[in-house]
């Protein structure tokens, strides 16, 4: 759930990314090409709407999230407690609606390791030995 991709489109002229995919670049009128973007990013801003429009429950938590690569999208959230501008979030599509969830330290660490793993055992083993070295160093320092 933590790491996946989101369908997007990219302008061949200005390379801007848009979510969900659009037929034409809003600035250049050029036909956009299919692309994907990571489902993680940062909160640009957020609000809690206390008088939600028809068809929505109040309070309604809405965030604008900038995904890695620069595409922005609106998301719903279960809550905005603890969320700040700049908070790292993961975005998930449930029944064609994107939801954001706050990524704690553990989530981000897990994501880092998973990515490191995906780039080959070499990265993982280097990281592993680094951590082991750190652990050894610390324990020797304490004794």
């Amino acid at each position, binding site marked *: 759930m933590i790491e996946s991709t989101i369908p997007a489109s990219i302008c061949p002229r200005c390379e801007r990314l*848009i*979510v*969900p995919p659009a037929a034409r670049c*809003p*600035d250049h009128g050029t036909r956009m090409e299919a692309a994907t973007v990571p489902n993680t990013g940062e909160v*640009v*801003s*957020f*609000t*809690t*709407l*206390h*008088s*939600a*429009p*028809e*068809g*929505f429950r109040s309070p*309604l938590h*809405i965030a*604008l999230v900038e995904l890695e690569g620069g*595409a*922005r*999208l*609106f*998301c*719903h959230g279960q809550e*905005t407690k603890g969320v700040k*501008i700049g908070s790292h979030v993961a975005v998930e599509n449930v029944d064609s*609606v994107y939801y954001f969830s706050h990524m704690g330290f553990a989530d981000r660490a897990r994501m880092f390791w998973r990515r490191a793993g995906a780039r080959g055992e070499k990265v993982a083993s280097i990281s592993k030995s680094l951590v082991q070295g750190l652990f050894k160093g610390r324990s020797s320092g304490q004794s």
Partner: protein
Amino acid sequence: MTDVWIAGAGMTRFGKRNETLPDLIAEAAFAALADARIDEPETIVVGAMNPEEFTGDGNFGSLINTHLGFSRAPALRVETATSSGLAAFYAGFAAVASGLARTVLVVGGEKMSHLATPRVSEIIGRSIDPHERRYGTTMPALAGLITRAAMHRHGLTLREISQVAVKNHANAARNPYAHFQEPVTLEAVMESRIVADPLRLYHCCPISDGAAAVVLTAERRAVRVAGIGQGTDSIAIRYRSDLTSFRATQVAAQAAYRMAGFGPERVEVAELHDAFSPFEIISLEDTGLMAAGKAGRATLEGETALGGRLPVSPSGGLKARGHPLAATGIGQVVELCWQLRGEAGARQVQHARVGLAQSIGGLATNNWILLLEAAR
């Protein structure tokens, strides 16, 4: 290009009104024609954002010219969401400036207070990008996001934002045409209920009915159109890289100043589009009337109050004079006309010769800046 002059101005009181929209428009139109001492306009431009949904009326240009008794005067209906009033003004200006017409009646109006608030919000919300609307993003929700980003980025405070509402209510208390006639305290604004965090109820404009009209002419009169400019941005907020300033205002202002041949330093009174109080602060900076990051503090220090260095929205603004959508932009022009002619009564800005009006369409997707100058 022919010089364009404002021959006459008139408006209804804004607020909750029982009259029909065509009747409100007629009241404003005949007030402007009487002020201009013109019996019959050559052509008519009608600004209306959403009469189809609010009142069920269509073919609005023809409905209005017939209702006014000028069914032989060619009528055109113009729409750019919440800035439809200044868009209609632009169409009238272009007709006179190009020599296509000698006198044009420009009128705008909206009636919506007869509908329940959630219904009105939903209809106005249709000016938001369809994908973003699926997330329940109403205008207050988007304004809430923008306000939080501005507070985070520019250090804008809730107190500074709230002072805009206090100042505009104080001005409206001196304006018999305003929706609200009572001043409010800073505490009342800051303690009003939260609508879209961090925006509170008293930071949001009310739902108003009303109409406003001006008569434009190629003949020399007291007030000249010095410059007008339009600026746009994508309807999708997620396509924009900057939330805390509006490109549509900046571009419109540059175009208007270029046409006028002068810059913001000559503006002595302004009517700005404070649909949400923080928008007045953002707009002061987008128009170049104040330096970036300075407008919040200046508002708190009274620089934009009546008697301040640059009085802003002496009418009471959208917050307190009211916001009957397509009437709003033309209502700003009416107020500036009265100010430049020295007829603004208890809210008169002394010796004002140049005025600026700003109108925001949608969530700053289609904005207008107008510069008016008193004849020498």
